[in-house]
């Protein structure tokens, strides 16, 4: 295992190594809230980061499995393409923004705009998510095992939202949807992938797009 101690090694050294590493186990100690840690990974490396991370940790990840033993700052896993991210603590705002694929698991809570403009990523949050989560969410799934803040799924496209707790309010063009067998299967797979074993899919409610705002119509101007 290759170990980086960020009290001595630089972020540049860490990322440069990750960009050239293949199927390695990499440990990062003393993350210290530093920004842009483990960004642009391109291979099936297993990266463990000990400590809290700053902005954009695991940004644009491809294939790597990254575990953060701590809390994550804004923009965790932004525009991720594939691979998996697990945060043992909480995640700040914009978690998995515009991410195209892979799995992001937050064992604590995620702040506002979790999954904003998500484009295929799957996100499982064991706790709560803040306001405007899944804003303009295009595809993929957001699973919230706790409560969701205001304006969930505002201007949503085709992403699937599953919430176990309360939803403070739904955003424009987001509505409750029936939970069919295919959705139960999808949700169960997501919970299994995230390692959530103590919750039943029957306790979740599905939300998605009402598709009323897909074409700009002046009669809908009041909805925005």
């Amino acid at each position: 295992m290759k170990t980086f101690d960020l009290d001595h090694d630089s972020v540049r050294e860490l990322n440069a190594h990750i960009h050239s590493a293949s199927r390695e186990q990499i440990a990062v100690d003393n993350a210290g809230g530093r920004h842009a840690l483990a960004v642009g990974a391109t291979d099936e490396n297993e990266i463990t980061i000990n400590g809290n991370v700053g902005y954009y940790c695991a940004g644009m990840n491809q294939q790597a499995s990254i575990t953060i033993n701590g809390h994550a700052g804004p923009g965790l896993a932004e525009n991720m393409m594939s691979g998996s991210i697990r945060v043992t603590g909480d995640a700040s705002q914009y978690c998995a923004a515009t991410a195209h694929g892979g799995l992001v698991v937050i064992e604590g809570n995620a702040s506002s705009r979790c999954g904003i403009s998500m484009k295929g990523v799957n996100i499982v949050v064991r706790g709560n998510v803040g306001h405007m989560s899944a804003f303009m969410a295009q595809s993929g799934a957001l699973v919230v095992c706790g409560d969701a803040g205001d304006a969930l799924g505002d201007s949503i496209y085709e992403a699937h939202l599953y919430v176990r707790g309360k939803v403070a309010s739904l955003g424009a063009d987001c509505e409750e949807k029936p939970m069919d067998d295919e959705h139960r299967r999808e949700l169960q797979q997501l919970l299994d992938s995230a390692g959530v074993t103590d919750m039943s899919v029957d306790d979740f409610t599905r939300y998605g797009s009402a598709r009323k705002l897909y074409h700009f119509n002046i009669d809908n101007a009041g909805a925005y």
Partner: protein
Amino acid sequence: MTDLSWLKESSTFTKPVIAEIQRAAQTGIYDIRGAGAKRSIPTFDDLVFLGASMSRYPLEGYRERCDTSVTLGSRFAKKPITIDIPVTIAGMSFGALSAQAKEALGRGASVMGTCTTTGDGGMTPEERGQSKYLVYQYLPSRYGMNPDDLRKADAIEVVVGQGAKPGGGGMLLGQKISPRVAEMRNLPQGIDQRSACRHPDWTGPDDLEIKILELREITDWQKPIFVKVGAARPYYDVTLAVKAGADVVVVDGMQGGTAATQDVFIEHVGIPTLPALRQAVAALQELDMHRKVQLIISGGIRSGADVAKALAMGADAVSIGSAALIAIGDNAPQHEQEYNALGTSAGYYDDWQDGRDPAGICTQDPALASRLDPVEAGRRLANYLNVLTLETQTLARACGKSHVHNLEPEDLAALTIEAAAMAQIPLAGTGWIPGKM
């Protein structure tokens, strides 16, 4: 025949104003169109060059060398790009434009050794394959954004805004959302697609600094990073972009075009290119970063005179969008009958948003798009870029400059008080700069 010669048109309620009120009353929706501001504003036409005479020696045309190369990204990037001419092609999306048009832009730019730019919607293989230097735009919607293409790019442009609509997002109407466009953007085919007006994961210059750090780390500090802003408060925006770590700042004036924006936005938000350039240069000079952080100015650039004047005022390069589209065939007179059928005429067509462009440029209709031959259209763009370059060199030589970057404000005079005030160039025949003396 009735004599109507006595009729007096109102200066307030002109025919176009009356027509717009009638259109608005009929439809209940604002006018959406393409292109840039059409209103009359101070431009580079309001400046003239002071050619060499007794106090300065001119250079011999066709004989003495006048260099036009520009290096972009020398501040932090390990691999800055050096383009052969001081004119780049502005970002325009695949989606707004056909794949053939994007390819043509790449071909024309490459022949002349300059760069072209992607747009919202990602990078197409046609464009990458035909572009010697390709700038990859990083936009709020992040449609088509992926790290593989980021690494394929020669530079990255973080788009904060554009001149046609500082503070505005965009809408790609459903008729242009073909299966390919929909797939690249990960959205259903045929729906109206909203392009966000602000980035999803950063707000403000402090965040931008960290975002730029992330992009540099992902690309191992290889790529020059541009920051593009629409001209609203260019002095502050340029200052903040430099503080955030930009290698290159792009400032787009209000004449800058768009594929689809509300007319009221195009005409009434932002400031003209002329004062925007002056404020941008002032910001760089005060930071002692002029020529260290390169400045690209865009918005209404049409001729080598515009290019030369922009460089004389302190820009490192200019960027063209609308003019490039015209060069490859937009508004070409051979389509006059079809323009007429759309209720317009060659030279006036600006419904770039509706996907019915007879020239095959602003469309995703396969039949229309196939009308544009990328090779021939690319050749026309190369011709046009060549003319811009020759004109720029001609003016630079007349001022005694062996490199177009040696042009300076002292080579210029203003023809109007407004231009003198906005450009901070003396009114012709005087030493007067409004606000200075």
